[in-house]
């Protein structure tokens, strides 16, 4: 009586597990294909000239230095605005805020900021920074726009890192005569720092790869020289890739793949840095 039933269940299990494994494999394949394609077809384009020289012939030859420099400036600009505000907001949520309706409202606001489409950020940046505040199409406008977009990522990651610090440390610090800020400054923040840095890097990585927010706020395609001030427009890797793959006739495929490769190395390099920081900090933790 029992045997046929058991046989059925295990057969279903074997089929099911095979099916799920197939699904997972199918998911992995595109990932490997994507990386494979870009690495193999982009690598031949990479040379010192490609990375360090200015472009020629309407971008069809030469290097992509201004795009690399531009992305670097934009990332830096984003960091300048979003990191201090983001960490401070996280400290507020973790260490000061009580669980009432206004805190709940702040959290909803953060979730919403995280969900707004990137092109809507571009519109907002255009409306506020470029036009209303008259910053024009500039690194400043683009950085400010990207900062607001990056804020929720940093706040979430930083808050999580702060909350992970054991409450008992705070209690001890207070009982020894510490104020709230002293406790944060001397114990909580230093202990949460690796987690915060990881979150910051991941947030900035996202900002570095975005195109839509910078489309109307700071990105330019053809600039004869590197930007001189934050009020200049700039080239940027994601925007550059977009234009050369869709709007420039006669664009050598190799340069396109090369640009894509540089972009993902930039972005994923940050990802790897963040992961390394996270695992090293976990090993050195004194709690």
């Amino acid at each position, binding site marked *: 009586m029992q045997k046929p039933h058991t046989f059925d269940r*295990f057969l*279903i*299990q074997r089929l*099911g*597990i095979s099916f*799920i494994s197939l699904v*997972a494999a*199918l*998911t*992995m394949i*595109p990932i*490997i294909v*994507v990386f494979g394609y870009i690495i193999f077809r982009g690598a031949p384009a990479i040379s010192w000239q490609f990375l360090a020289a200015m472009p020629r012939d309407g971008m069809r030859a030469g290097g992509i230095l201004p795009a690399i420099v531009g992305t670097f400036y934009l990332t830096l600009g984003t960091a300048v605005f979003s990191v*201090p*505000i983001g960490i*401070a*907001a996280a*400290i*507020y*949520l973790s260490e*000061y805020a009580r669980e009432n309706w206004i805190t709940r409202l*702040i959290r*909803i*606001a953060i*979730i*919403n*900021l995280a*969900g707004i*489409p*990137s*092109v*809507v950020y*571009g*519109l*907002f940046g*255009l*409306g*506020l920074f470029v*036009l209303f505040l008259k910053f024009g199409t500039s690194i400043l406008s683009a950085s400010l726009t990207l900062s*607001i977009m990056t*804020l929720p990522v940093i*706040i979430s990651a930083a808050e999580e890192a702060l909350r992970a610090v054991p409450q008992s440390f705070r209690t001890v610090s207070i009982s020894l005569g510490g104020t*709230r*800020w002293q406790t944060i400054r001397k114990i909580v923040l230093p202990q949460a720092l690796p987690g915060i840095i990881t979150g910051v890097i991941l947030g900035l*990585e996202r900002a*570095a*790869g*975005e195109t839509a927010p910078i*489309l*109307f706020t700071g990105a330019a395609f053809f600039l004869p020289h590197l930007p001189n001030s934050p009020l200049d427009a700039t080239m940027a890797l*994601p925007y550059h*890739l*977009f234009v050369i*793959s*869709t709007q420039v006739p006669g664009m050598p495929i190799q340069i396109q793949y090369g640009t*894509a490769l540089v972009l*993902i190395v930039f972005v*994923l390099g940050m*990802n790897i840095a963040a*992961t390394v920081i996270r695992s090293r900090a976990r090993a050195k933790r004194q709690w």
Partner: protein
Amino acid sequence: MKKSLTWTETLITAVIKTCGYSAIVFVILIFFFLLREGVPTLAEVKLGELFSTRWYPIEAHYGILPLITGSVIVTVGAMLIAIPFGIGTAVFLSEIAPRWLREILKPLVELLGGLPSVVLGFLGILVLTPYLRILLNLPTGLTALAGALLLGGIAVPTTVSIAEDALDSVPQGYREGALALGATKWQTIWRVTLPAAKSGVLTALMLGIGRTIGETMAVMMVTGNAPVMAVKLSSIVSPVRTMTATIAAEMGEVANGSTYYHVLFFIGLVLFLISLVVNIIASSVVFKSKKRAERVLS
């Protein structure tokens, strides 16, 4: 005994509190600016015209329905891909794969999630769309299907990541209890573990949807940018245009302050409100699960 709270600390506390409220300020600011530039549309374009089926701004036709249907068809297509592959892969990583495999594959999936969408769009143009054109014998590979595939690819890592975390945090005791009662591993997954992780998985899906609706570059590059009503079954293999792509593609060519300009902002406003609704639904799901967890653990 007197108070010894210093001046500096009061100042720092004030700065921190201000930054804490900043998120609310920014959301309101964004909403306000979209309203400011988008609402004039309602004065300049008749409502009937706005929701008509013709998007041809050069001749002052501002019907946004084709754009909405374009977004919908691509999003729905993307979710049809992301849900099975996302949850399936999450289940595989969390419940079936051996430890060492999981340690390799999970970072790989997260790596895909970190890829800028313009890179995926780029590969989409060069590799995916020609392939689709040949495979399905179409006039062009720039279709809603291409968009759905790419967006699925973008939504999957987010979905996998969060769903896998949700499955992982189901207490081991649940699984052991089920196995002790004689269930097979397979039955345990579907009848015990997955339902237990329900709210986390739902959150994962909602966040995946959110990412999909808001995606701009990848869709702009592969969906063909034809603002037609995407309501027939064959629409999935024809070019369409999404709301996001419309804004991105046409904003650069628009005169400041013109009706066209206002309409694009109006579309942005629509997108903002959609993401607001999706996020509020998602966050209420998350909040419920947190409260339940707190009750369970106390």
